């Protein structure tokens, strides 16, 4: 038996009669880790959290927390006995208690457990000072989410589950809060699972990320690997990372594409020489070179602040993104020809 802190073993999560997330297996090795579950809306991420929290039962598989089975096909520990906190996406504050009283509801649980933050610390950290006397209907959705987060944190759970914790919070505060929450979680070593549809949030917050697509957990890995070594076309499409072009494997470290020519690099997965594959081209893979003979037409230009992404059209109607520093001396207009440095070298060759 492994001694992971949390183990999800071959669990099928039933979202609705038709929609399920099948045979999910992952684990949280150490206490205090953050796992982010990433996926599009309506895929069942929330159901996964609700099931771990004990609000839904499972038909197959096992959920094991601290070596104890808490859910299986024939056993179900009631949610109030699990010591797992879930912070809902929608407002779930008790409507007839003020913000401060709502938070205090959380502190009733695990009173004796040591906790380095007091209720007031959390109120300050989460910027709730001004609203602590208010009632839930008087505060905004983002504020309600923060109160709910404070209430969950203060209950000192073994496992903290956050459902889209930053979805109603505006961009600037969101980044500040993400940083703070990460600090708090790391400091008090509270094991956390965060559900989100924002990949940047998941990559920033998570020690590990799981991607749920098409009713299953497609990949579970550290963020770097998910970003650079996506293991399926679906993940590439979901993360919106680039395009797939047809290529022919010509050697141990080379590929050949009709228009781009020879492409060199290290294969992530070994490919048979002579096989035709789909190669992932990400925006940062290609470099700009005005002098290059390889020139493609610009069809769109996206200004991203620190950089531009030029979208180039190939003759075979593929749209290839290329990242260029925004300080780059001259800019290219739509319909201009845009040079790409040759020979093309890509660090990790991701092929399918």
């Amino acid at each position, binding site marked *: 038996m492994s001694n992971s802190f949390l183990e999800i073993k071959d669990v099928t999560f039933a979202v609705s009669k038709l929609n399920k997330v099948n045979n999910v297996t992952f684990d949280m090795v150490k206490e205090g880790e953050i796992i982010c579950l990433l996926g599009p809306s309506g895929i069942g991420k929330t159901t996964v959290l*609700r099931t771990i*929290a*004990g*609000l839904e039962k499972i038909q197959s598989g096992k959920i094991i927390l601290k070596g104890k089975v808490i859910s299986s096909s024939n056993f179900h520990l*009631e*949610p*109030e*006995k*699990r*010591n*797992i*906190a*879930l912070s*809902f996406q*929608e*407002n*779930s*504050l*008790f*409507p*007839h208690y003020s913000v401060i009283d709502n938070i205090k*509801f*959380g502190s*009733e*649980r*695990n009173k004796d457990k040591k906790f380095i933050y007091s209720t007031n610390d959390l109120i300050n950290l989460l910027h709730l000072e001004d609203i602590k006397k208010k009632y839930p209907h008087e505060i905004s959705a983002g504020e309600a989410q923060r109160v*709910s987060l404070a*209430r*969950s944190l203060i*209950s000192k*759970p073994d496992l903290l589950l956050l459902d889209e914790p930053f979805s109603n919070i505006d961009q600037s505060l969101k980044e500040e809060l993400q940083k703070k929450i990460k600090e708090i979680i790391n400091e008090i070593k509270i094991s956390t699972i965060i559900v989100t549809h924002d990949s940047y949030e998941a990559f920033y917050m998570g020690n590990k990320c799981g991607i749920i697509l098409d009713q299953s957990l497609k990949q579970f890995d550290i963020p770097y690997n998910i970003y650079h070594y996506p293991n399926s076309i679906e993940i590439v499409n979901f993360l919106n990372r680039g395009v797939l072009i047809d290529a022919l494997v010509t050697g141990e470290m080379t590929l050949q594409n009709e228009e781009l020519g020879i492409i060199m690099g290290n294969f992530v997965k070994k490919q048979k020489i002579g096989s035709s594959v789909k190669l992932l081209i990400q925006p940062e893979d290609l470099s700009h070179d005005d002098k290059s003979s390889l020139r493609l037409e610009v069809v769109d230009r996206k200004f991203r602040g620190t950089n531009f992404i030029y979208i180039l059209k190939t003759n075979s109607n593929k749209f290839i993104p290329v990242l260029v520093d925004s300080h780059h001396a001259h800019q290219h207009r739509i319909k201009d020809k845009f040079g790409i440095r040759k020979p093309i070298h890509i660090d990790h060759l991701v092929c399918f």
Partner: protein
Amino acid sequence: MKIKQINLWYISSFFISLLVALPILTVFLSFFETTTDYFFLLKNTFLLQYISNSILLLFGVLLLSFLFGVGAAYCVSFYDFPGVNFFKWALILSFAVPAYIYAYALTAFFENYGTAFSILTYLFGPNEYNSIIPKVDGLFGSIVSISFSLFGYVYVLTRASFYYQSQNLIDVGRNLGLSPKKTLLKIILPSARPAIVVGLSLVAMETLSDFGTVSFFSVSTLTTAIYNAWIAFDDLASANQLSFILLLFILFLFFIENFSRKRAKYHTPSKGGFDTRIKIKLSGYKLFYTVSFCGLLFFCSFLFPVLQMLYWVLKFPKYLQDLNILNLVFNTLLLVVLSCILMIIFSFVANYGCRITKSKFLEILTTFSVSGYAIPGVILAVAFITLVSYLDNFIFFNFKTMFIGSIFGLVVVYFVRFFALSANGIKSGYLKINHSIDESAYLLGYSKFKTFSKIHIPYLKNSVLLISILIAIEIIKELPITLILRPFNFETFATIAYIYASQDLLEAAAAPSLFLILIASIFILLVSRYILSDK
């Protein structure tokens, strides 16, 4: 899996539904029993008359309540005139005057040598006025009495619907070139139609259930026929068969009401857009007509019966002294408190059961168990007696005396009749508590019971208070059930007023009637804010 789900919630919800279902089943089953001679007699002679009277009464009342209710709602919603805020809530005071008491007041005023006669004599000197004073009694008197006491349903529901109509709708109409009159007929009224239909069907159900008024005016309708079959001929079978016919009418109305209520929901727009409506400031003859209409309606529906009763109480003080007020208040309170406790406990059980089991079957059971409000009190009482007498054959201890002529039996039948009030009240309170709130509580370590006691109860305590008052108003006014099932010598304001009135001692009926109206008015004022909200 299946067996695990059959728990306390199922059993109690099932029990409540059964309680409501039994009287209805009793009525339906007895229809197929061998007919007694009395029923044949009825069929050959009076049955048609009962039915036609009931129908005439129904249409008369519907017409008047529509005019009064929609007219008043329109005036206070769209126009600004002096006293508009007063009339807005003053018009709901009509709920405090039961139709049968209104009937006493009408008779007292218009009868030979009645109050109208006294006023004319005082003003113009003695003369033979009896021949020129119109006699408001019989079917016409019943229609007037019932309309003035029930138009409030139409008023309240229509006003709520008008309130939620956005100014946009009216502006669009104007923008498309509709005249104000056309706006009223083509936009405002049609979009309030579901609310008006719900109001009218409630009025219709109450009218068909009315017993006190028609019996006082000696109009033979289905309800009085049921009562007479039971009390005068001691013929439960005929009473039940008549009930069956009445129930068919009610069932029809019940479906109309339920159907319209569902549609009415679509007409409540979400937040915003409805409080911007600008009321039209009235002047000139329009102002005069509007104020007169509202003023007259308020006078006729509330002030007139109150003043008439007050006048008689002052004129014949000896009846007041005879009245054991403390005892009556105590009896009424006893019934109210016992019923409230029973209904509220069961409402919580039913609603909480539905909530945590999330069972569709349980929900259907609960929906069914609130349908008792549609059944006339007379039918419920008679069916209850039938049922208990039947069961008595199988049970050896004093089963019958436990239920019939006991406060316990009375409360049980009140329960069936008014359970809808409390169950729906608690339900609408529960609808405001998101499911994730319960789940949050579980996740914070609160057990199901602790969630119930620490989260639900404090949140719903206002609903409970409101429901208790609404139940109190209904029970104070309730006549036929109390009359038929009350213990010997146990009187409420309603029964004692009825007994005096039916003995032609209207002067003596004045004091209990006045007290009844006053107590009901106080309760209505306490909940007026709720009644006037969207409901």
